[in-house]
């Protein structure tokens, strides 16, 4: 079961939309598929991201995966804790393992995201 108050992407990221801001992370499914996360590369605060643009990288012992901006916006915060504790992505992907906060360019883009049921469906098929 995934948290019911979030929205999701096909790239296995989650988005918590609060007004014109959004918090972004990767899902438990993504974290499990990656395995032990050992490095997270996140953007500078202030950077403007187009929807679907690559904003960073998450690396496990074996694999390197790009992170994609689920919505367009400017980065207002990054989770600095991941620089020293990348394992938070595995242990608390929906909580302390969050990655960035965005000020949304167009909150209406939220309608392009998957709801929890649709995301559950996606992961059960793969």
């Amino acid at each position, binding site marked *: 079961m995934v948290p019911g108050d979030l929205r999701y992407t096909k790239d296995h990221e989650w988005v918590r939309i609060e007004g014109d801001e959004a918090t972004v992370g990767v899902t438990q499914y993504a974290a499990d598929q990656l*395995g032990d996360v050992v490095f997270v590369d996140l953007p500078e605060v202030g950077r403007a991201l187009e929807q679907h643009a690559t904003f960073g990288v998450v690396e*496990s*012992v*074996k694999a*390197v995966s790009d992170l994609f901006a689920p919505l367009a916006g400017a980065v207002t915060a990054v989770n600095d804790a991941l620089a020293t504790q990348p394992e938070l992505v595995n242990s608390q992907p929906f909580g302390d393992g969050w990655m960035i906060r965005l000020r949304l360019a167009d909150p209406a883009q939220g309608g392009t995201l998957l709801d929890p049921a649709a995301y559950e469906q996606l992961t059960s098929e793969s």
Partner: protein
Amino acid sequence: MTDAEVIPAHETALVEVHRRLGARLIDYAGWLMPVQYTGIIEEHRAVRERAGLFDLSHMGELFVEGAAAGDALAAAVVSDPRTLAVGRAQYSMICVPDGGIIDDLIIYRLGSERFLVVANAGNAAIVSDELASRLHGRGAVLDDRSLATSLVAVQGPASAGVLGPLTDVDLAALRYYAIAEGSVAGVPALVARTGYTGEDGFEVFVEWDRGVEIWDALEAGGGAAGVVACGLGARDTLRLEAGMPLYGNELDRDTNPFEAGLGRVVKLDKPGGFVGRDALARVAREGVAKRLVGLTVTGRGIARHGYPVLNASGPSGTVTSGTMSPTLGRAIAMAHVAPADAEPGTILAVDIRGMSVPVEIIPLPFYRRPT
């Protein structure tokens, strides 16, 4: 419609054991193999601190025997197996005539004219065919028992304590790089004190359909000692910390043993010559085009297989393997670099996704077990 699932050609005798333990199974060199059970870092640490259990049944087991087995094998590989005492092992390689590496091997001397050659899974068929052809007409025959042999390894400081009660082999008398015949959990076995982790450990060869018995006995006997099942992911990080080469990464047909830092294995002057001798003698005389080094990333990021290595004036080489070292807590890698850039202390850079990240050459291995 769904895409057709890619089903590897082979499963080991232990595949149901892996499924029971919740392994993530992947196609590796045509075999369905566990890449991890609970997590690579946890499995890695278990081997450094206690012991881990590995299914290595995908490896190739080639038995060579005949009246002139020693001479025939010596002519086929770069080392000299005739110098081995019965019951001892050596690291070796088989090369093409231009000196490029076909595979790296462990050769065990089981009798005066009987040897066991262990090849990597991805190369087992190639080595089997090439070796058979090189032995032909030289008084030795090859018996490829790769698909008739299960191989289970127990690796780590607790491994002797785990295996000891289960075997009639005197482990105290079994030296590093030695092998003995005996039984393990009542199953006829070859027990070798070899491995690919940088720790003390053992590799147990048994008939194919007895592999599960060996695994179950080691798993049950090792429970109190904290032995855990380990997959190929931990095997890779363990061997990398120990500075051991992996075929396809550090070794390939475009790399000769001297370039891989393995010149000591090559016996240029052994009687009878060997395939690749002339080319390798020239390399020894004239020098190498690249050298294998260890490096640590001093900037941010992880240098991975295939990333370019740069010096102040341009390209120097390529990263062959790299990861975040679970033991050292920093990013380490092996790389082929220009010979002039190979001295420890040299500062180079690795191109990590377009960023030039500083690295420093450091001596191999990255990790040496406490003695």
